[in-house]
């Protein structure tokens, strides 16, 4: 199986980011926002987006003067060999934790909501093996598949959200500030890493056809995803009220089980296949990023040969918790809180060091 070494266009890159972050609304991410900001979780989402705009711009600025280099190579250039590798290794470990916990959550969704009689290990094996196959084909293929299914996943999401709006009650959004400004800001500050994938996307910057495409793709997805996630968070509250939505682990899946399209019931079977494909793409991309970073740190050029090994480790770590709902949600909350300050500070530090080194003087590739 040969990997293609071509480049991605803006369409493929944007589609990957849309599926990567857009699917977060369908897992247990909303629960973390609702538990802190109650019915004002959507304002927290807006604050997260606003807070991360500066680090994202700074990251793009740094990437713009190091065209052709990925995030790890820029880390090495800016921080030096030792600290640069340590920064990348920290990102790798946090990435490992994210993949293991996210995959556990997705397997739990599939196992508790759809395939209740299938053993967890079987669901895990299928999910990760399909994702590993996608990752092995390379980022260009992941981008092509993401673009292929992008339209269908978004249409089904819009249909689901439309019917949620029809059945929802807008009065449940009030009081508009929920637990108060303090609670909203605290939740937003702790959950900044929901948008952390934008930072990790720097790893594939050299794979996008031009830097202009990369920058436009980032801004476009940033804007649309902010609207998408905010609207979805509002609609879940409108449908369930915050007292219920707070204790629902997977509000999106409860929503598609709840809504009816005309005389059609059990419409979750309409949404599930598209969500599943989006999930495969998401984990394919995560595995690819992980081996790319691992290969970068240990100078392994043919890093795609690492995919089977890391996939086995992900599966074996992912099946460890006996009660994923409790164990994973606690650990995932902690990981989000650890990642949040790091993802906010790191681009700023990178920009300051690049500025001190004089990389921006002629704005040309260094």
């Amino acid at each position, binding site marked *: 199986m040969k990997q293609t070494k071509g480049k991605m266009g803006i369409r493929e890159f944007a589609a990957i980011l849309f599926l990567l972050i857009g699917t977060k609304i369908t897992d247990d991410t909303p629960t973390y926002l609702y538990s802190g900001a109650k019915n004002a979780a959507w304002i927290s989402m807006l604050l997260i987006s606003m807070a991360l705009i500066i680090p994202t711009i700074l990251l793009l600025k740094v990437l713009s003067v190091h065209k052709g280099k990925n995030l790890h190579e820029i880390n090495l250039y800016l921080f030096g060999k030792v600290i640069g590798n340590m920064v990348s290794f920290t990102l790798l470990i946090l990435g490992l934790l994210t993949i293991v916990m996210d995959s556990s959550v997705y397997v739990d969704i599939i196992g508790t909501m759809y395939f209740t009689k299938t*053993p967890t*290990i079987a669901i895990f094996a299928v999910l990760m093996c399909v994702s590993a196959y996608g990752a092995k084909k390379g980022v260009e293929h992941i981008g092509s598949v993401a673009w292929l299914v992008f339209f269908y996943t978004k249409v089904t999401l819009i249909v689901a959200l439309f019917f949620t709006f029809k059945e929802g009650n807008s009065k449940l959004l009030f009081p508009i500030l929920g637990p108060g400004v303090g609670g909203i800001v605290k939740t937003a500050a702790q959950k900044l890493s929901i948008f952390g994938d934008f930072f990790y996307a720097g790893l594939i910057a050299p794979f996008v056809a031009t830097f202009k495409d990369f920058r436009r793709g980032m801004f476009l997805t940033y804007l649309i995803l902010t609207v998408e996630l905010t609207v979805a968070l509002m609609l879940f509250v409108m449908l369930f009220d915050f007292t219920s939505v707070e204790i629902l682990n997977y509000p999106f899946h409860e929503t598609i089980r709840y809504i009816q399209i005309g005389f059609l019931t059990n419409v979750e079977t309409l949404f599930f296949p598209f969500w599943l494909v989006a999930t495969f793409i998401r984990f394919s991309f995560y595995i690819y990023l992980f081996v790319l970073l*691992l290969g970068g740190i*240990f*100078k*392994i050029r*043919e890093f795609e*040969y*690492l995919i*089977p*090994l*890391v*996939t*086995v*480790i992900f599966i*074996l*770590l992912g*099946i*460890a918790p006996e009660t994923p709902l409790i164990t994973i949600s606690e650990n995932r909350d902690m990981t989000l809180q650890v990642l949040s300050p790091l993802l906010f500070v790191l681009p700023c530090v990178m920009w300051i060091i690049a500025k001190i080194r004089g990389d921006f003087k002629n704005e040309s590739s260094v």
Partner: protein
Amino acid sequence: MTYTIYLAVIGVVIYSCGFALSLWKQKNKPGAFVIVVLSVIALVLPYFTYIK
């Protein structure tokens, strides 16, 4: 099921050790060492996470 898991893990470990060997021959000793360490982790993990 346990045997199936171990069989799959051993297959992947053999594949990865072959890659580690090729890295060793290319003088990338840290890379080869990391793959061997990951392979050992993959071999012992089922005992702690699946069999228990």
